[in-house]
Structures are given as structure tokens and as C-alpha cells.
């Protein structure tokens, strides 16, 4: 099952990320992990949270532009070579990763174009996929 990932458009301004975190705290939403990507004047914040729909609603109300995208969340073995094992499987299957980031220490969030296909390849290789 792909996870729902919440994406937020952020201008490069002091306090914008803090504002997102505050809104989530006020809505009692737990942040499992996130990543940021920055361009010239703005960035994209990607979040995996305990309640994506509420989080989106709250952020929208506060004037943020958001988007929900699906991504695959998998468990990485917490030992040397853990990441390589996953990436090697994907490379062999010629699956390109759009972006990837770590959440909760040992979980990877992956964005690929064909989620079901990628999930089944990972499953065949005994990679644990999280919900």
C-alpha cells in the first residue's frame, strides 16, 4: 500500500517551516518524517504525517498550497549495506527514483512513476513495505 505524502509549497522565508510545524502541533498531528528541496526563491516540503487529510485541511486553511501524492514507504535494514540492497534491486529492475528520503530513522520514502510495479518487485525481493 502506498503511503500518502503531503507536499507543501514554501517561499524561502524565515519562519515558514516553523509555521507548518506549529499548525501540525496545534492539530495534534504527528510528524513521522519530512524532506525539503529548495529552488531559487522557494522550496517544496514533503511530509509524512499521522493524519494526512486533516493536516492538509489545516494547512489549506492557513493559506498554504498543498498537494497529496502517493509514494512507497519501505523498511530499510539498519546495518551496513541496507540502503544499497534496496537501490540495487531497483536499479536492476531499471526503476528510476524521482526522489527519496528517510523517515523515522529506518524507513525510506520513495517516489517512482509506477508504484504498483515497484512495490511488487520490492516484495519479491523480501523488502518490507510499510503502510
Amino acid at each position, binding site marked *: 500500500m502506498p503511503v500518502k505524502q503531503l507536499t507543501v*509549497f514554501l517561499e524561502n522565508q524565515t519562519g515558514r517551516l516553523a509555521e507548518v510545524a506549529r499548525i501540525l502541533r496545534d492539530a495534534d498531528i504527528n510528524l513521522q518524517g519530512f524532506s525539503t528541496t529548495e*529552488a531559487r526563491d*522557494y522550496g*517544496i516540503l514533503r511530509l509524512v504525517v499521522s493524519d494526512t487529510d486533516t493536516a492538509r485541511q489545516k494547512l489549506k486553511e492557513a493559506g498554504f*498550497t*498543498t498537494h497529496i*501524492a502517493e509514494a512507497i514507504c519501505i523498511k530499510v535494514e539498519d546495518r551496513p549495506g541496507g540502503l544499497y540492497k534496496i537501490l540495487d534491486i531497483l536499479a536492476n529492475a531499471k526503476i528510476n527514483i524521482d526522489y527519496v528520503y528517510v523517515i523515522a530513522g529506518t524507513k525510506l520514502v520513495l517516489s517512482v512513476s509506477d508504484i504498483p510495479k515497484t512495490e511488487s518487485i520490492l516484495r519479491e525481493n523480501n523488502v518490507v513495505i510499510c503502510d
Partner: protein
Amino acid sequence: MSSQTAKKDFWDPEISTASRDRIISIQIKNLKDTVKYCYNNNAIYRKKIDDAGVNPDKIDDIADIGKLPFTTKDDLRDSYPFGLFCTPLSQVVRVHASSGTTGNPTVVGYTKEDIDIWANCIARVMYDVGVRKDDIVQISHTFGLFTGGWGFQIGTEKLGALVIPISGGNTERQLKIMADFKSTVLVNTPSYTLYIAEVAEKFGIDFSKLHLKLGFLGAEPWTEPMRVEIEKRLHMKALNSYGLSEIIGPGVSCECLEQDGLHINEDHFLAEIIDPDTGKSLPYGSKGELVFTTLTKRAFPAIRYRTKDISYIYTDKCPCGKTLIKMAKPMGRTDDMLIIKGVNVFPSQIEEVLLKIKDLEPHYLIVLTKENYMDQIGVWVEVSEDNFHEKLMDLEFFEKSIEDKLFSAIGLHIKVSLKEPKTIARSEGKAKRVWDRRQGGN
């Protein structure tokens, strides 16, 4: 080139040092002639003159000009492309067009005689400040439909000096040629002139070792501090040159070495100042909208063309010896036209492009800044759920696609910045569409 010889040596001494009475008698004669000529040769002008209830044979006094109808940029647009020409196209040897206006560009035409008049006007302003046959004139204005480059090209040739029609851009080459060809005169926009200085300093080029003495700078508004900066850095005297394609191009007026007001070539261009709201003529010395009537042109004569530039006109005993009337350097516009890198831009043009873009909110803010002394124009637009793609690449592509559309419509690179929703102030009534951040340093 020396200001000593320039003092008493004029290109057209009988005009440049003529008495007021003599100038006014030339103007009345040519005004009568122009009005009759327009009436007899152009249906649009005839209708305008008839509608104003003016008998074209009854222009007897210079004050009668106040009865004549105005010509505006809209008249040119509405008659696009050649509707206001007064000669058959077979007699027109050149057209120019103004850079960007909403809808149609404004097209102007020249007969062979008009071209000669134009060349003479420019030769006059150059010669009268000391440019001579042995000068080397580097023209860094863009050549094309824009009048800036071509006007100085033919004026310099008429004077007999050497022209380097290098056109705009490629700053390193500008500097190499300036040094190798020993350019003595620079024709350029003030902002690009300062940028050239900046690049030169980066390369360790010392202008005191080059040969520049004089700059004819124009095609955009500039300030006195900018002149001081240009003169200090380029080791040349910087003169303000004024003109607009609808009148002829550069050569309408230009500063003398006194740098105190621009002498108008008033044997060809009759200047008035009007109240922009009421259209009433204002006396000398009053600030208002500058209006010009061409007195000698044939392909496209302009009757009371409203420049929308704010200035005032005055006579003084100019120490340079010229008696031609002066206009103050334009101090603003009556409309919202922006002049960026010599390109005329109306906010409405930008709006027109933006509103056609799918998924874009109808809120935008044009932001003007200065970078390397050059005016920069950018536009803020807001992201929305409709245009927000979760990948950075898509957002950058979206910005770039808007920039491309703006470039093809306006001919200017306008940087697009995506902003968070509601960043751009909403207003009831007239929205503030331009944020000018150019003041306050570079």
C-alpha cells in the same frame, strides 16, 4: 573635439542662434503648411481637423495650435500599420516601430527627405557639442525597429564622423572595440553604459586610458546621480538625448555641454506643454505633458502628439550660445508605461499574457529592481492548488514557460517568481500592479 571651438561653431548657425521672432516665423509658416498638408493627404487627419471645427487655411498664429486636435498612441494603433501616413508607400523608404504596446505596435514612416531631416537633426546636436569628422562614434543601441541606433547612424554619417554600429550586448566585445578602435563618442542607454563600466572594472580596464570624451545617452529615464556616476567612471561627459519614434526618434532634443536642459530642434518640432487632464495649453515654465507637432516631416507628420512625458519648456540665455528653446529632462509619465532596457512596457501587456495562462491566479505584481545599474523587471505570480505540481522540476518548468510567453509577447526577459497564495495584496478598486524597488541603491 574641444569645447572651445564648439562654443561658437554650430552646424546650422542660422537656426541654432536665431532670434525668437525668427524661429516663430519659421514655425508659423511650417505649421500652416503641415496642417494643410495633413488635411489634404490623410483621411484620418482630415476628419480629426474637421471634427475639431478648424479651418486648415486659418492657422495664422502660433497660438492657433491650441485649436488643433491631439494625436495619441491610440490613433496610431487604430490606424495600424500605415493609416496615418500622408504619402503613398512608394515614397516611404523606411519604417520604424515602437517597442511593445498593448495590441498593435505603433508604426512610423520616413520619406527620403524625412530621413535627411532626421540625419540633420542628429548631426546638429552632435556637432554643436563638438563632435567632428575625426571622431569615432560607437553606437551601442539596438539596431532594428527601434529608432535609437539608426537615428545616430545616419546622423553621424551626415556629420562625417566614423560610426561603429556595434549594437547592444556582448559587453566584452564593446570594450575591446572601444579600446582598439579608440572610440571617442558613445551612444547608448545610461543603464547599459554603467554596466559596461562595471564589466570594464572587472577586467581592470582604465577608462582614463581609453579615448571616450562624450556620451549621448537616452531612451530611458535616468537621474542626476547616475550621470555623476557615469561621468566619473567612464571619464566622459554624459549628455541627455531625447526623442521618440512618433516624432522622429532621437534628435528631437539634446543637451548641450552646459547640461542644463535639452535644446529642442524647434525648426522641425514645435513643443507645447499641456495640462494632461484638461488638454489646455500651459505657459512656459509650467510642468505638464509634453506635446510635439512635427513641422517638416512628410511620410508621418504628427499634429500635437501627446508624448505622455512630463516636463516643462523654457527659454534662457544658454552660455553655449544656442538660442533654441529648452525642455527639462522628462521627470515622469502621465501613464503607467515603464521603460526597461530601452523597451517600452505597459503593465497591461504583462497582464494580457498572464491571464491567458491556464491555472494561474489573476493576481500578479510587477517588481522593478536594479542589478548592476540595469533596471530589472520581474513578476510575482501565486501558486495555487491547480498549478502546484509536487516536483520542483515541474514548478521550475512552469516558471520558465511563463517567462517564455512573456518574452515572445514583449521582447524582454521578465523573471517570474512563484509566491505563496495571498502574498500579492488584493485590493478593491485599482490594484497596485507595480512595485518599484529601484530607488535606494544597487
